[in-house]
């Protein structure tokens, strides 16, 4: 398998997602859609009937929460083949270890306007999945897009860097638009891997085709410490770099820069708190409570009894 490198892990820490465009071979995408009973033509009676038909086929297995990922899907099924891809298996192992369990999975189908009798389809409100979750450990959500997603199809919308905010699920629905929000427009076989806390919502499908997205939530069964390929971690990773008055030393360690890169929606003051929370997150991943970037935590920890 191909483990993530340190830059990818730092990007996940800072922004809450990693995107792999077209990483799943077309053969597997076609198998996945065929197992559902295909479907891009849209000749189904109603959303309810279509979900019932897919459920009856059993191609997305009904499995108990907490089942080992290794036992969740039939061998040679499209999802098993997807999870076995070296880049996917490596990313999962880097983030949630070698023996993750499945929290749940769900096939999201977004129907085009022709399926709505009266009102036109609307986008899902922005939300954070599950509920308030103050853990330092984290789950990941794989979002698999088995076919091309165009702008008109209303791909998943998400807010980079929102994952460390502790909010209560749908409470953030009032935030209609946030500077820097991204909409998934992607080729077939694209995979997004997201931290469980990232703010997101489904877009409205204004095309004439059904849109499919298969989501799998995975939980670690071990501490998520040094699970990735650390070979690119700089030797001076624990050293501080100049701050504010910087000269030419600024980019010595790219990971420090990644962890302190603001998002467009950051407020002036809480943006700094986001850096602090990212640094705490990286300490957890690194297994080293002395790591710091730009002195944000060292300054606060310089106290005396």
């Amino acid at each position, binding site marked *: 398998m191909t483990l993530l490198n340190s830059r990818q892990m730092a990007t996940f820490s800072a922004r809450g997602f990693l995107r792999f465009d077209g990483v799943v071979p077309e053969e597997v995408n076609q198998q996945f859609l065929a197992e559902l009973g295909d479907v891009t033509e849209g000749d189904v009676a109603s959303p309810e009937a279509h979900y019932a038909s897919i459920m009856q086929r059993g191609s997305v297995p009904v499995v108990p929460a907490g089942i080992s990922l290794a036992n969740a899907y039939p061998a040679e099924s499209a999802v098993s083949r997807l999870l076995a891809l070296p880049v996917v298996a490596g990313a999962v192992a880097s983030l949630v270890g070698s023996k993750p369990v499945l929290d749940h999975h769900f096939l999201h189908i977004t129907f085009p306007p022709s399926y709505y009798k009266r009102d036109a389809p*609307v*986008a*899902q*409100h*922005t939300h954070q999945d599950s509920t308030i979750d103050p853990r330092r450990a984290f789950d990941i959500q794989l979002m698999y897009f088995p076919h091309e997603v165009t702008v008109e199809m209303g791909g998943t*919308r998400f807010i980079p860097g929102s994952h*460390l*905010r*502790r*909010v209560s699920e749908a*409470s*953030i*629905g*009032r*935030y*209609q*638009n*946030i*500077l820097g*929000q991204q*909409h998934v427009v992607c080729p077939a076989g694209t995979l997004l891997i997201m931290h469980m806390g990232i703010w997101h*919502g489904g*877009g*409205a499908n204004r095309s004439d085709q059904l849109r499919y997205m298969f989501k799998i939530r995975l939980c670690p069964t071990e501490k998520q410490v040094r699970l990735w390929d650390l070979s690119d971690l700089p030797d001076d990773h624990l050293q501080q770099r100049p701050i504010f008055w910087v000269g030419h030393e600024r980019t010595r360690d790219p990971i420090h820069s990644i962890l302190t890169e603001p998002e*467009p*929606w*950051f*407020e*002036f*003051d*809480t943006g700094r*708190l*986001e850096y*602090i*929370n990212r640094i705490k997150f990286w300490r957890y991943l690194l297994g080293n409570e002395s790591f710091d970037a730009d002195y944000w935590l060292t300054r606060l920890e310089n106290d005396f009894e």
Partner: protein
Amino acid sequence: MSIRQQVMVLYLKSSALDTGVVAWAFYDGTGKTSHMSGDQAEVPYKTGLHALRDGWRLIQASPLVTHAQGSEFQTDYLKYEFFFEKLVEDDS
């Protein structure tokens, strides 16, 4: 002829009305326009002050709240929320 309320919510970079917009929402009581999550990429106004200059009336601003001991570094909801309204005649 009756009066209807249009509501705009702006989230700013700080408690100062003349700082930049980072998030926003619209609700139109006339029903003539409709908005949904993710429907706009560009901010409607550069700052809250620009909204005032365009005739929006500020009706609520989020207060500054003391940080609870032990959770000083926790981030959660967008912090600087400003509600604006316009009262418009509705001839429908």
